[in-house]
């Protein structure tokens, strides 16, 4: 397995994770993009060593690189491309609505969390009539 590729994958996933845990949606998009790159490179490295372009009329099966991860990677690239564009549109819309692109805390979750500050769940009578 290609150590260089593995290290690159680790770097991309690290930075990608760092970015998706940010507050600003545009940074999250950058992070998603990097995670996508990391995933594609991981697929390639898992498929075995590099080789000739997998063209049946130019190279023999033994010489060529594994075509399967390449086919899978193509799909992955296109899907993460679609995701990135959609997130960009969302960020733009968010900006139009609120003037920034920050990911707010979930209001419903905040409301649930506030319950913890109440002293007692509800009055419990000693002996119900």
């Amino acid at each position, binding site marked *: 397995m290609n150590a260089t590729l593995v290290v690159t994958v680790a770097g991309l*996933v690290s930075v990608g994770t760092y970015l998706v845990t940010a507050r600003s949606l*545009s940074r999250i998009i950058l992070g998603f993009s990097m995670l996508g790159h990391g995933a594609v490179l991981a697929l390639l490295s898992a498929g075995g*060593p590099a080789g000739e372009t997998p063209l049946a009329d130019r190279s023999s099966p033994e010489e060529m690189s594994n075509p399967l991860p390449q086919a899978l990677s193509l799909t992955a690239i296109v899907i993460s491309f679609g995701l990135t564009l959609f997130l960009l549109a969302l960020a733009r819309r968010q900006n139009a609505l609120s003037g920034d692109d920050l990911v707010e805390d979930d209001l419903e979750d905040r409301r649930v969390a506030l319950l913890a500050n109440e002293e007692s769940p509800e009055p419990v009578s000693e002996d119900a009539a």
Partner: protein
Amino acid sequence: MIASDTTPSPAGRAVFGLAALPLAGLTVWATALLAGDGSATFSVTWVADLDLVIAFHIGPMAALLTVIVAGIGALVMVYSAGYFSKDAEGVVRFAVTLLAFGLAMIGLVWADSVWTLFLFWELTSITSFLLVGFRNRRAEARAAARRAFMITAAGGLALLAGLVILVDGTGTDSLQSLPQLEGSEAGIAAVLVMIAAATKSAQVPFHVWLPGAMAAPTPVSAYLHSATMVKAGVILVAITGPAFTDVAVWKNLGLALGGASMLWGAIGALRHVDGKQILAWGTVSQLGLMIVLLSLGEPKATFAALSIIVAHAAFKAALFMVVGEVDVRAGTRDIRELDGLARSMPIAFAVAAVSGASMAGVPPLLGFMAKEAAIEAGLKSKGFGAVAVTALIVVGSVLTAAYTLRFLIGMFGGRSDTPTEVSARRWPMTMPAVALTVLSLGGYVAAGTVTTLVTRAAGTLDPAAAEFALLRWPGFTVAFGLSAGIVVVGAALGLVLAREASSPPAAIGAGLVDRGIDEVVVTARRVTAQVQHGSLPVYLVVVMGVATLAVAPFWFAVDLDVLYRWDTPVQPILGLAVVVAAIVTARIDSRLGAALGLGGLGIGVAGLFATYGAPDLVITQLLVETVVVVGFVIGLGHLTRRFPWADRRWLVTRVVISVATGVSVAVALVASRSQPNGTPPREALVTEAVQTGGGNNVVNVILTDARGLDTLGEIVVLAVVAIGVVALGAAGGRRRIA
């Protein structure tokens, strides 16, 4: 509370009539089955792969209990039709829940496997929670329902553990033929099952939920808290008892819990002033007697216990119905306020007097015969227990007679000039209680028939228990002497305490249980507030952290020998460029700069593709990267040039978790390579591409041919994205809210 001047609701009558039908049908069927000494077996496969079957076997014991559960259920439905007034809310909900409870209870007594038993056991807990908390706008009803549920649910967990040990030890989950359990496991299982029974049957110290459960509408008390749910624990002790006959702790624990409940319940009944509470505490006491008799594990005691189950179902349900009728018609059930009801409610008084006499063990009633059998069983029991158990039963019975008289005098006595005003009679409330009272009388008259039915049921638990009989007139035996003494002393005690305005005993431990429940709820909210706080970044950090931990085992599977440095020396240069571009993109403050950094990174990745002999990927990557950079510029053009400060929080945690995630992915990759389970099917792919797909570009053939459907899906995704982007863009353009 129900206003006393409204008439019963006609719609309610229809609903309850409908709900009574299946129960009445089951009663008739079970009676026929019991009379014919027949049995029925059927099962429903639930999860075939787990051999999970809902199995039912209705032998004499189950049939007898079905007659009680379904029969009283049908009567309670009729009673409910009178209980609820025209303007009462949720009548349909009530009828359906009550019917669901009745059917769950029937499932419980029919159960033929311990798992079926457990399933219906829990179902009765849940439906009972809904019924106790029926008046869900009242805080005390909610609290009582929660308390009842927490205690019975905890008992359910104990039961599950006990049953698992039981099945593990005996090797069978059938309840028909439970072999004796031996060894150290037996003691643990016995304690767990007995605790479960004690929680359900409201035995000391788990009885604290039952008095509170009186917040439920009276039909619920008449059904659940006299004849059915509280009997579930007793039934459990009865049917699992044969497995524990040789386990000392089973018997001792049962005697201790049951004995304590007999006495403490009766004392509670003597001190309360609320008619319903008197009956509830009396029920704790009566259930204690049943548990005591069943844990003796002797034939005579088993027979006596079943007789008391039958007698108790009849008289206690009738008494609850009377209290409910008094409550509805007089507007209170406080014995300090009621006055002169014996004259204004003569039928209710007659019912209460006869059923109460049955409870106190006065002839000529069913309760008398059952109590005689219990005393006989105590006298005949073996070892040191004979004296102790008999004394326990006698003292319990004296107290029972006393609180019965106090109840009757309190509810119906008094001759002052200003008797309590009562509203018009409601026949649906009167008739079921009358019917049950007739049964208490008729059971005495037809002692032979009752004996036949009870011995058939007792015979399924213990063949030797089938020899006994209920006697109308036992003769001047020791037991009869004790019985007579009990009634006399009890009556005297009852008269003394009748109008005593003593303060009700604090339900010992109720406060503790409530505090415990509150603590659980508060802790749950604190935990929820911590884990469900609403912050997306923190959620992600947690998810990634857990994923990192999940990868931990892979560390041991890593074989570094599978690694090689690079395919060409260009790769490390490109790799380094990619990682540096990523870091720069992450750290740069300017949005445009970040977009360009991402573009550069993409080009580096495309270069890596090139070294892998993947021109298709290179082309796609370059195209995509160009569009994405353009998209960033268009999409984020309206945003501020710099990223907001908020991104700087939690920096250290984020960096640590991010690096851990990256390393984990790398470890997982290397570990998967270290354990190969095959070689890439290059040859096959190439042959397939050329011969079947008719193309030389293997990658393209895979995409368009072998994975054609996937590719179609991919195109659909892109189309949906395009529509979404256009729609979002248009929305942003037309109405700017900010």
